[in-house]
């Protein structure tokens, strides 16, 4: 009976949540198609050069997959909010307003890209006024978050802290990334680039807070262990992560001629990052029983893959951020390996964990019928991701050696061709694997919820 009351409490907001999750999966679907086109433009220089050149495919891909990451994180948080707070979402119409604003903004952005209207800034390549729209769409989310949870930070579990930090810092860093419109920043390239690296680096940190927070929440639900997320250790690691978010961006700026202490601060702090994640994984894994693993086998497997990618990417990121190396590895596909390795392996896997956790809750029967398909999607995408990642490191190596030997750009591109082929083809297999997850998930989300008696 009390279960039924709970369901009624959540039902109205869950409808908006599902709409938002579907939107997020749509971004991923579309973003993956454009990434694949971009990948093939590496090996076939004339492929769609007139109709949809790389200066359009890249921003479309990058914008859409980033939109996937933050929209899915927001949707998952919307699902968890009333369950954590024990009361309905504060402003359900605001959720719909959020979905509407986000949908319209992305439609305009995508249209601008297709028409060749750019703002021309890395990651935020759309005309600058659209950045304002994105910020606007986050306001209902922030209102709903704080007014539903009404957090008491003295006793709140760590994921509430992480979500709060993520939202706060999204507003800060998104605004910071637009400082360039002022002459003080615009006319000094070193300042402009440094601030841009700073803002983007912390912005990635802000959505990582949202994504990792949802990961920890699902871990708590799967394991039933409510202590770990409130423990001193969890908070110790939260604060390390928070410090990283604010100060770690500098590892990108070794080549920018800013003052040396900017770089040193960044390096020391980035070394601590490994510690954080290894510790969190360890804490939860310890508490999960075999029965729980079996029941939640899909979220569990996704989490385990995310673990693997966390370790691999951290080892790699730390290797990259050694200042002496960084001077050479920057501006090569090593950076792309780091960026996509983390956004696919860690963020996307953690977010899919939430997606399938939610679907399992909402459509248990459908879920058990489709487990096989989902499992193969997970394996296909992760194995091909390894090949994809290796191809990027391979092309990074080629670029590095040709830089050191002062070779011509064309020569280097020629030598990289085998790696680019592996990149494009393994990318295609990733897309196949992820489609096996996305399409069934979208179908399940638009299905009516079964009535339980």
């Amino acid at each position, binding site marked *: 009976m009390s279960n039924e009351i709970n369901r009624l409490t959540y039902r109205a907001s869950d409808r908006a949540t599902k709409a938002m999750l579907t939107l997020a999966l749509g971004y991923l679907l579309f973003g993956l198609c454009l990434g694949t086109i971009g990948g093939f*433009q*590496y090996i076939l*220089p004339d492929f769609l050069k007139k109709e949809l*050149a*790389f*200066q*359009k495919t*890249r*921003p479309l891909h990058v914008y859409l997959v980033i939109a996937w990451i933050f929209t899915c994180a927001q949707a998952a948080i919307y699902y968890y909010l009333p369950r954590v707070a024990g009361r309905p979402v504060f402003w359900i119409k605001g959720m719909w307003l959020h979905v509407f604003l986000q949908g319209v903004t992305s439609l305009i952005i995508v249209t601008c890209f297709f028409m*060749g209207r*750019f*703002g*021309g*800034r*890395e990651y935020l*390549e759309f005309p600058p006024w659209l950045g304002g729209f994105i910020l606007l769409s986050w306001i209902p989310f922030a209102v709903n978050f704080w007014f539903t949870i009404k957090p008491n*930070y*003295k006793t709140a579990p760590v994921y509430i*802290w992480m979500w709060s930090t993520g939202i706060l810092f999204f507003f800060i860093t998104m605004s*910071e990334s637009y400082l360039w419109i002022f002459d003080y*920043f*615009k*006319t*000094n*390239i*070193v*300042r402009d*680039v*440094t*601030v*841009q*690296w*700073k803002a983007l680096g912390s912005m990635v940190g802000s959505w990582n807070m949202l994504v990792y927070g949802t990961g920890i929440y699902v871990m708590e639900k799967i394991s039933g262990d409510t202590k770990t997320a409130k423990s001193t250790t969890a*908070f110790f690691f939260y*604060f390390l992560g*928070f*410090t990283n978010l*604010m*100060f770690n961006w500098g590892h*990108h*700026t070794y*080549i*920018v*001629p*800013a*003052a040396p202490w*900017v770089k040193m*601060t960044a390096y020391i702090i980035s070394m601590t990052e490994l510690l954080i994640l290894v510790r969190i994984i360890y804490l939860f894994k310890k508490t999960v029983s075999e029965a729980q693993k079996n029941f939640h086998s899909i979220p569990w497997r996704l989490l385990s893959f995310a673990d693997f990618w966390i370790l691999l990417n951290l080892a790699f990121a730390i290797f990259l951020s050694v200042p002496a190396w960084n*001077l050479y590895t*920057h*501006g*090569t*596909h090593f*950076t*792309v390996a780091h960026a996509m390795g983390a956004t696919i392996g860690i963020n996307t896997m953690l977010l899919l964990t939430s997606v399938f956790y939610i679907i399992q809750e909402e459509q248990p029967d459908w879920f058990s019928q489709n487990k096989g398909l989902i499992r193969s999607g997970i394996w296909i995408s992760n194995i091909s991701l390894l090949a994809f990642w290796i191809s990027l490191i391979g092309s990074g190596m080629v670029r590095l050696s040709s830089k050191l030997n*002062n070779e*011509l*750009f*064309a020569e280097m*591109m020629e030598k990289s061709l085998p790696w680019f082929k592996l990149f494009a083809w393994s990318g295609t297999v990733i897309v196949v694997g992820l489609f096996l997850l996305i399409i069934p998930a979208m179908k399940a989300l638009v299905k009516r919820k079964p009535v339980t008696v």
Partner: protein
Amino acid sequence: MVKIAAFLTLFTAYLVYSATVYTYGTRDTIQVKESAVPQIVYGKTLYQQYNCVACHQLYGLGGYLGPELTTTYSDPAKGELFMRTLLKGGGLRMPNLGLSETEINGLVSYLKYVDSTAISYKKPAKP
């Protein structure tokens, strides 16, 4: 209470750090003639309008299909004439963007300015 205090302390440090980075950390080391500024800003605007960042990096920021442009201007193997040729006609992968002479001048001034600030690039490269 300790957590809240720790948060506020770190957050304050962040604000101070940000302000320092905006000012002392990135002070103008290269003096540009006042009269050259509008042309540089014009070039930068074009660089953004044509989304050169999708394929090129400046100080490591940008896509990787094309070469890094930070020091192309002073590169003895490349230089201004080479840049102009590519900007005018495109290359194997570089699209012909149909740029006018005025636009090319603007882009070249901007890239020349960027090159003049790239002290950290030039040191290790030359033996």
